[in-house]
Structure formats: structure tokens, C-alpha cells
């Protein structure tokens, strides 16, 4: 079961299944990878949006916190993380 990171519930760790690199610019893709966002990595969406909009999205990637926009999150497909799958 995969879903888009854009819609993933907050506070639940997920594993990145696929990233649609072609849908984004080279710079965007590179910065995502530099943040450690790539296939196989576990991330936890933490905070989403403000009173102004649903953007942006704050994620935990390992010990790092990063902020990305929903547009990029929508290009990232995620699946249940290892631990979640076992407990399910």
C-alpha cells in the first residue's frame, strides 16, 4: 500500500517507496537528496501548514528536521515503515 507523503498522517513514520524525480527540477531533486530524502529512507511528517495554507510540511529525517512544500511531498510515494508493518 503506497500513499503520497503529501497526504500522510502526522506523527507516523513512513518509508519512501518512490520519488518522481522527473516531475521536479534538477535543483529541487538534488536538494531533496541532500536532505537525505531518497528511496528506502524512513521519514516522519511532523507539522503541516499554518492558518494561511496547507503548506509547508515539516519532516523528521533521521535526526534532522526539514521543511518542504506540499508540491514536492506530492511527488514522494510512501509506504508503511518497517516497524509499523511488523506490528500490523
Amino acid at each position, binding site marked *: 500500500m503506497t500513499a503520497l507523503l503529501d497526504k500522510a498522517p502526522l506523527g507516523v513514520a513512513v518509508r519512501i517507496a518512490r520519488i518522481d524525480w522527473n516531475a521536479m527540477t534538477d*535543483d*529541487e*531533486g*538534488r*536538494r*531533496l*537528496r*541532500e*536532505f*537525505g530524502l*531518497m*528511496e528506502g529512507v524512513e521519514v516522519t511528517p*511532523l*507539522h503541516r*501548514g*499554518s*492558518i*494561511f*495554507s*496547507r*503548506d*509547508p510540511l*515539516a519532516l523528521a*529525517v*533521521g*535526526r*534532522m*528536521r*526539514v*521543511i*518542504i*512544500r506540499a*508540491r*514536492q511531498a506530492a511527488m514522494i510515494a510512501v509506504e508503511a515503515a518497517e516497524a509499523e508493518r511488523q506490528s500490523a
Partner: protein
Amino acid sequence: MTGAIPTIALVGNPNAGKSSLFNALTGARQKIANYPGVTVERKAGHASFADGRPISLIDLPGSYSLTPASPDEAVTRDVILGRQDGEKRPDALVVVLDAANLDNHLCFALELIALGLPTVVALNMLDLATRDGLTLDPERLSKELGVPVVPTVAVRKRGLAELLAALDGAIRTQPARTEAGAAGKAAPSDTSLHQRARAIARAATLAETPVRRWTQRVDAVVLHPVAGFLILLALMFVMFQAVYAWAGPPADLLEGAVGVMQQWVIAAIPENFLRDLVVEGLLAGVGAVVVFLPQILILFLFILLLEASGYMTRAAFLMDGLMAKVGLSGRGFIPLLSSFACAVPGIMATRAIPDAKDRLTTILIAPLMTCSARLPVYALIIAAFIPDRGVGGTNIGLQGLVLFGLYLSGIVGALLVAFALRRTVAKGDAAGFMMEMPRYQMPQWRDLLLGLWQRAWIFLRRAGTIIAMTTVILWLLLSFPKAPIGESQVEYSVAGRIASGLEVIVKPIGFNHDIALALIPAMAAREVAVSAMATANAIDADGDEDAMAQSLGERLQGKWSIATALAFLAWFVFAPQCISTIAITRRETNGWKWPMFMVGYLFLLAYAAAGITYWTAVAFGLG
């Protein structure tokens, strides 16, 4: 080595503590703050090895790789690869790592080590790693990386001697290997490099307890869509209330001191040209500006606290939605907030914005953020025309509220202008927003005090140089030619006549002769508006004991209508009265086109805003 002084660059991810380390090693006072993208240009300094041999250290903007995404990161790449014009390539590197974020920071480190320069790794922020429950093995890390690793805590000056010793050793023993196009070969965006980085991090981590939860609990509130925004507003609000509530006593003290000095000079020097220059020009003029030092320092204390704690990126997160609506990103909120201090560093800080159009727009609207040079002008007029009382029987000061309103008008104006610019001259794709969010930190008191001291010094130096100079020149222009008995000296003088010419243009928006006189010299620095009026009034009051005893505010109160005062405030929200801002815009946009555009649109806005304010106020019977 050829006997020349070795050049050593500090390089690493943003917010790893490079500038802290640089300051600790060189005694410099580079800006340090807890968000990525603080350093935006190359800075050099001197240090020495234990035996006294000198070295030249270079502090660089943080970067994630040698492939830059923004202008500041391009500087880092150019310096490291020796492409910077007129600069030789560094002889060695100190790669600064955040010990609590090895997974990520090792990627850039691996890319840098692969360059083949003599390299030492500073395993910085070890104290934070410990706080977060990590136990690391520097020796193992060193073995995996193939270069010396020295644990450091830059803010406590720990590990500095060891770092220098390791560096000395590295320069001696690691010959610069010829790199076969190593740059870009192992870019940190490679999956394989990330896997290697993670493997090394795992190997070097002896123990790991789960992350402390308190930062998450703080963020749950601070980043909450509603509560978080209210907290942001409340912070700003408290900041402006404090500017008034706390500054009173020290400001009175300064004002008293200026008065005593005037009396003293009057008593000590016989009536002559020099005495008038000192009493009316320097003491009245510059003194009128200096009394605002306490308010400026309170404002800076708040900004420094926000920057040091890590709140800045949270504010960027909260504001991103609004910024996106006008075509900017939350990233731009940080330079804009810095512009509360001064637009010049604010405009410099836009170098960390990746998108060129996004950056240009942020530069063009930065002067709309109320910089601290406007504070004396606002404070003077508010103190004179807005009653000092609570709002609706509460303790909330009306004066602080009006000040808050002026800052808000600047922000709202900036957003509206950005909206217009992004649809016209700075058209482009929607800007992205990708940013790392640092951990919270307890602000370092030493850094705070140092920051405040620096700001106080900058302010006093401005007062002693540009403000004093403009005021003295203005005093001369106001004192000659001497008016015949019965005529106003101010109106009769050269400056007075020029002002009368200008008055024709600004009369429709409610400006009087006082204001017309202050507008031109205030181009040099906004505070001069205050010193200019103080000087003109001192000349007017010459010899008149009662008038001398009145404060500038009290005298303005007698001469201006409220509508005029409000129009004057509205003018200062928008007017581009600052030569340094124009100069830095020219530098950062490489040409005169954008600074000219900026000056033009700001003057138009200022005129319109002052006019609308004046006419509205008159319509309400405040003329």
C-alpha cells in the same frame, strides 16, 4: 609549504558551527545565529599554531555540497575549488560537522575529503549530541574517514588547541593529492554516498538513546497552525510594548546628560560661533538621536534572542503560507525580519535564497521593513502626539500599540508590493521552500551581550560620524546668512530657503517647513530627520529660555497638527531615505537598474501614503 602563511578554510553544512569555531580561533566577531544561511560571504581572519606560526583562516557560507543552490553556496564552491578571482586556493580544510547529525553531514564531508586537500574534521556540537543521548567514537570516525577527527564545542572553546595541532600535523603529513576531477564525482546527492555516510555514522555511534522529547513538545505548540501564529504575533507585540515600557528611565537619563552637557558648554564658552555649533548642532542634533539608544537595544535584544534560540526557522515555517500567496517563500521571512534591525544586512542575507526572482523581490521589499534607524523618528513623533496611556483602561500602552501598527503597515505594504512585483517585473515560477530546521538552543549570554554591544557601537558610531556630520553641515546652512532682526533665522537661511522650495511639493500631503527641512538631509541616514529638526528648533529657540527648556517633542506638539504628524509617520514607513540601502542594492543586483526602480517606487508610495493619511485625518477633523 613554501613558507607562505597557510590558508585554511572552515567548511561544512549550514549551521554546523563554522562561524562559532572561526570566532573562537581568530577572536573575530562574525555573526552567529541558530538558523541555516547566517554567513553569506567569505571572511578571513588570523590565528596561529601553538608555536606561534601564523595561519590565515577563512569562514565560508554553509553548503550541502559543492553544487550550489543559492549565491552564498556558490561562494563556498568557488573558494574551495580555487575559482574565486584573486584568491588562492586554501591549503587545507577544516570540515565542521554537527556531531548530532552525522548521517547527513558526513555526505558533504566525504565529498570534501575526496578533493584531496589536507583535511581535519571538527566534530562540533558534541555537547548537543550528548544532550540528545548520543555517544560517539571519534577515533573510529577518523579511521573510517582517513583523516584526523577532533571533538570540539565551539561555543565553549573546547578542543581548539587539539584542532590546531591536528591541522598542523595534517598540513605537514598529508600532501595535497592531485585530484583526478574529484569535484562532483562524489556528489552528496548520490544514493551510494548517502549509504556510505550512514554506514560510517552507524559505525562511529557507540550508543544512542531516543531523542529527547521536549523539543518536540515545544514544536507541537510553536508550529501549531493557530496557536503558533498567535504566539508569533504575541512575540512581536511584546517586543514593541517593551521598546516603550523598558526604555523610559535610561532614555531620561541620557536626555538629562545631554541637557547637562549643553548647560556646561554654555557656561564654559563665551557666546560665539563655536559655542552655537556645539550646543545647537552637535548636542541638540546628535543628542536628540542618541537618546533613542535604549529603545534600539531593546529591539535588538529581542531579535538576537529569536535568532539564537532557533525560533527564526519556525517563524519562517509559519509565515510560508502567507509569503507563498504573494509569490515569495518562508525563506524570505528571515532576511525580512533581519531588516527590522537594518535593511543592509537583511539584503545581504537574501543570498541564501535559491530562486533569483524570489531573491530580487525580497531585496526590493526589504526597505519596507521598519529598520532601527526609523525608530527614533517614530518614537519622537509618537511620544509627542500619541497620549501615553493604556488602551481602554488596560495596561497595554497606546504608544506601543501605534508603534506595532507602524511595523505592521510596513509588513503589509511589503507583502502587497511583493504581490505586484511578482506579477510584473519579477515574474517567475512559484518559489520553492526547502529548509533545514535547527534544534532549539539556549542563547549564549556572551554572544547576546556581544551582539548588543556591537549594535550599540554601530549606532553610536553612526551618530558620531554621518549623523553628526550631516547635522553640522545643516547647522551651517541654517545659520547663514544671518537674518535681520525680527525675521526667523531658520526661514531666512540657505537651508530654510531650499526647504521653502521643497515645501511647495510636499504641502499637498500636509508637510510643513520643519518637515521639508528634514527630508533632504535625512537621505544620508533616517535618524538625521530627528537631529535636523532638533537643530532647527535649537536655532529658533536661541536665547529664549522657555523654548530651550522644552523638549523637541513638546515644541513639535505646539507647531504641528495631528494630521501632519500622522502623514509624516506614513511617509517614513515607505520612503527610501537611506543611501547605504541604495548602495547595497546596487551591489547585490549588479547595476543601477534595480536600485533606481526601488527608489522610484518607494518615493511614489511614500507620497501617496502620506497624502492619503493626511487627507483622511483632515476629513476626521484632525487637521
